[in-house]
């Protein structure tokens, strides 16, 4: 039985943080699509809707996304194409048309659920988070945030914004494995590639969904100094399998872990080669 002990809608993030620190049962409320479904929820809700966190801007070579911006807000904002078409692809394949109007970027990052489409892209895009803690604002890279166990890290902290550096010579690629366009996909792969002519000078690959959290594939560095071909992409796919074998999980009965291990190299290779060529 759901039991909401109290509800606050503070006007500033610092007030939200203070309220959260005064109760062990406080939960921040962003879009609400997840919290509202928790049948045994017992907490004080701190609604962030009045905190001024629904903003999107492009400045100084960065895309800044306020934590309360919804996926639809992002899809409609012209600056969202900055990180590349694949970023829009990842956004538009998030959930279904209605839920995209509700789920927020901050809530999705804080929850870090396996079906969060942007987890792998944010890993390879060098994204960072602007976070509020008692001593003031601080920045943490998305990769460190993931490595720090997000739920632990966010005790006594509040995500204010997501920052994505816009790098002109970087190509973003994205692929997902699912039965239908609106299915909860069990596997996401993202890659960012910089080239000089046809030669790869930097390559990053990340996989998410089928793992406890998103991970970088170190084998992607093998691409540096080479021309990206199908066989090179397949080599990175095999490296991904080597690195992740035994760690693959799946809550989707349509995609058992053994099957995901089988298709992982293909999804990674398709992302790298199909997306970048």
């Amino acid at each position, binding site marked *: 039985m759901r039991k*909401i002990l*109290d509800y606050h809608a503070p006007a500033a993030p610092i007030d939200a943080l203070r309220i959260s620190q005064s109760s062990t049962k406080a939960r921040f409320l962003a879009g609400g*699509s997840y919290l509202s479904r928790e049948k045994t929820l017992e907490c004080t809700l701190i*609604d962030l809707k009045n905190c001024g966190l629904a903003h999107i801007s492009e400045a100084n070579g960065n895309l800044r996304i306020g934590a309360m911006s919804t996926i639809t807000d992002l899809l409609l904002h012209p600056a969202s194409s900055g990180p590349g078409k694949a970023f829009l692809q990842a956004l538009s394949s998030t959930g279904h*048309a*209605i*839920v995209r109007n509700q789920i927020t970027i901050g809530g999705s990052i804080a929850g870090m659920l396996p079906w969060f489409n942007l987890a792998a892209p944010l890993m390879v895009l060098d994204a960072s988070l602007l976070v509020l803690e008692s001593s003031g604002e601080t920045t943490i890279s998305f990769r460190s945030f993931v490595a720090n166990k997000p739920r632990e890290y966010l005790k006594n902290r509040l995500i204010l914004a997501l920052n994505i550096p816009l790098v002109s010579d970087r190509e973003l690629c994205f692929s997902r494995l699912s039965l239908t366009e609106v299915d909860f996909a069990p596997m996401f792969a993202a890659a960012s590639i910089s080239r000089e002519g046809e030669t790869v000078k930097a390559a990053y690959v990340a996989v998410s969904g089928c793992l406890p959290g998103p991970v970088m594939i170190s084998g992607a560095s093998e691409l540096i100094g080479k021309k990206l071909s199908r066989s090179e992409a397949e080599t990175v796919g095999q490296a991904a399998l080597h690195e992740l074998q035994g760690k693959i999980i799946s809550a989707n009965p349509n995609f058992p872990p053994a099957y995901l291990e089988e298709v992982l190299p293909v999804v990674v290779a398709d992302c790298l080669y199909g997306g970048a060529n």
Partner: protein
Amino acid sequence: MKKNLKLQINGTWKEFSIEPGTLLLDLLRTAGYQGVKDGCREGECGACTVHIDGRPINSCTLFALQADGRSITTIEGLGNPDHPHPIQEAFVETGAVQCGFCIPGKIMSVKALLDRNPDPDEHQIREALSGNLCRCTGYVKQIEAVKLAARRIREKKGDHHE
């Protein structure tokens, strides 16, 4: 401990005093807006779709207090049997309604689609309806209905480019 909130529902401001855990779906149905259907309560089926400030939202996954001060449109705000909305007329005329349970939510999604895109193609229609399930599986007729409604609304506005 109850909380007060104000909602503009179908153009009329109303005040409520509710438990903070009340979902918007339950508030609306209790207040008499029974065209908002109680389906999955998981944000999956779309039967409870309403507009908040013009955007379709699953009212089953939103705490009512989140909508405080905002404008809500339910299916009752679009039309009625005497004065149906062109989308409702098109659904009836094309035979797009079977059991009817999903239809209010679908029509709210279609209304939002046609407000921003008066001439959607089939892919865009299917995309816009991706959050509204029909277990009678009558999708083909519903897509026909959306195309008919779109054409009629464009014609009404004097846009005869077809």
